[in-house]
């Protein structure tokens, strides 16, 4: 346990010292300012909007804007997670950073677990903080609050933690550049699959819906994000709820406890494959 904390601390220091962290913080500040401006002007003008009968304009605008913020938060969290882990094994070994650590009486599994924990210790609070900030911006500016406050944030952070694990797994087998590209492509593929699922639902296309479901099980970080979106308006009913479900930030149709349990199992599977791959790797 001591070694895990030492190496996690090493990873944390690496994260804090890297320029990518500063870049992400600057991007976040820019994102939050723009998000506030968007909220400010939208809710300033909302009284002038005459929505169709049965539509709650404030709830519709709030949920859509906050759904957009969730996407931004997920993207920034994923960028951070990938950059903190993409070269953790092969990249660091090629640079000669890993060997001095590995020959110490620290197990390779310990090292992997510690690097993951170090990345999660940075990414999860970051995602939580951005989630909370955007929620406060929308809530205080537009007087709209999500139906569930905590669970969506936790699911978003869990999705980012899964991406960190996938990136760590990739780092065992791929060079840093190849791994970064691969994980970003998986991330993009997941998002596209989620959107296709929404389109399939609107068009009543079972094929598209089935494809989206398969993608959701294969890439549960995307399913967690979709489930988090669904949780935002879980209690919103009527025409507003129906329309929100049709939109790009309406949420997925694969979710609930089974998904969360699968996400945990998926994390374990990724961890086991990474551990086996790393233990067999010559450095």
């Amino acid at each position, binding site marked *: 346990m*001591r*070694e895990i904390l*030492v*190496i996690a601390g*090493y990873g944390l*220091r*690496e994260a804090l*010292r890297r320029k990518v962290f500063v870049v992400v913080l600057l991007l976040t500040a820019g994102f939050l300012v723009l998000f506030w401006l968007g909220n400010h002007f939208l809710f300033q003008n909302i009284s002038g909007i005459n929505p169709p009968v049965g539509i709650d304009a404030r709830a519709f605008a709030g949920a859509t804007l906050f759904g957009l913020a969730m996407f931004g938060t997920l993207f920034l969290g994923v960028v951070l997670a990938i950059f903190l882990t993409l070269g953790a094994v092969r990249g660091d070994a090629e*640079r*000669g*950073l890993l*060997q*001095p*650590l*590995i*020959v*110490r*009486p*620290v*197990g390779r599994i310990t090292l992997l677990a510690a690097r993951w924990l170090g990345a999660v210790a940075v990414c999860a609070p970051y995602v939580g903080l951005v989630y909370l900030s955007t929620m406060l911006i929308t809530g205080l500016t537009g007087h709209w609050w999500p139906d569930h406050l905590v669970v969506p944030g936790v699911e978003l952070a869990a999705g980012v933690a899964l991406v960190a694990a996938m990136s760590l797994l990739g780092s065992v087998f791929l060079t840093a550049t190849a791994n970064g590209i691969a994980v970003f492509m998986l991330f993009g593929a997941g998002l596209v699959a989620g959107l296709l699922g929404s389109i399939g639902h609107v068009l009543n296309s079972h094929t598209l819906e089935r494809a989206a479901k398969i993608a959701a099980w294969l890439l549960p970080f995307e399913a967690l994000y979709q489930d988090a979106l669904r949780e935002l308006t879980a209690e919103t009913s009527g025409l507003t709820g129906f329309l929100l479900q049709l939109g790009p930030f309406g949420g997925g149709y694969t979710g609930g406890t089974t998904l969360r349990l699968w996400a945990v199992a998926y994390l374990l599977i990724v961890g086991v494959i990474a551990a086996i791959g790393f233990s*067999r790797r*010559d*450095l």
Partner: protein
Amino acid sequence: MAALAVRGLAKRYGAVEALAGVDLEVREGELVGLLGPNGAGKSTLVKIACGLVRPSRGSAEICGLRAGSREARRSLGYLAELFRFPGWYSADEVLELHQKLSGSAGGAHERHELLELVGLSDATQRRVEEMSKGMQQRLGVAQALVGSPPLLLLDEPTSALDPVGRRTVRVLLEELRRRGTSVLLNSHLLSEIELVCDRVAILLRGRLVAEGSPAELSKPRGVEIETDEGVRLFEGVGREDVPQLVAELVAAGRKVYGVSVLTSTLEDTYLEAVGGESS
């Protein structure tokens, strides 16, 4: 018990046979030099001993423990041929990190002593990124010494050092011998190996082709005697023949001014063993 015992060690990377059944021992307190051209398998052998590479065949033990096991890694210090420390760490922080990982209880005193030993006592708080390559290499040597391991595996520890830095490492190796630390020194610098090592092993294409003390590996090349007629070389004779040779020359009326017993250098032996191979 040997600090390092390697038996029938073989390693294959795809079609390339890096080691083809090597037997080697580094006894307690012994300083062994590992020589060989590039690609001879020296670094692979050291990496297997550290647990960085898995052998295809054979065994390697550190102080009687299977190489690569956590217990074996507690007993060794390693300096890789190509290594790097995070640039933002100071010299002191690098050693502190390795103290924590190796479970050393030496604290600040040990760190200070190690940095002094490698001539970095003035750079304790200097960041790695602000250090020259030579300073980083000396820090690497200090890192390998954290926790006073009974066996040190040094892969090209002087490759980036200037003559003064090399001398510092040589003095350090002599100090380690005095303390009874076993060392396997992988180096291209024959003079360095000749000066400090108790025993030398020469690898060629994954096989051990010569082994022995520098004196054993050096062969007699004859005796050179300077007389009033000039310098004469007597081939095929050794040190024990000198009194008789001098007596015969004096009896023949020659004036003898100097005698040199010629032996081949480690370089000659090495070149003979590897047949001029360089990569």
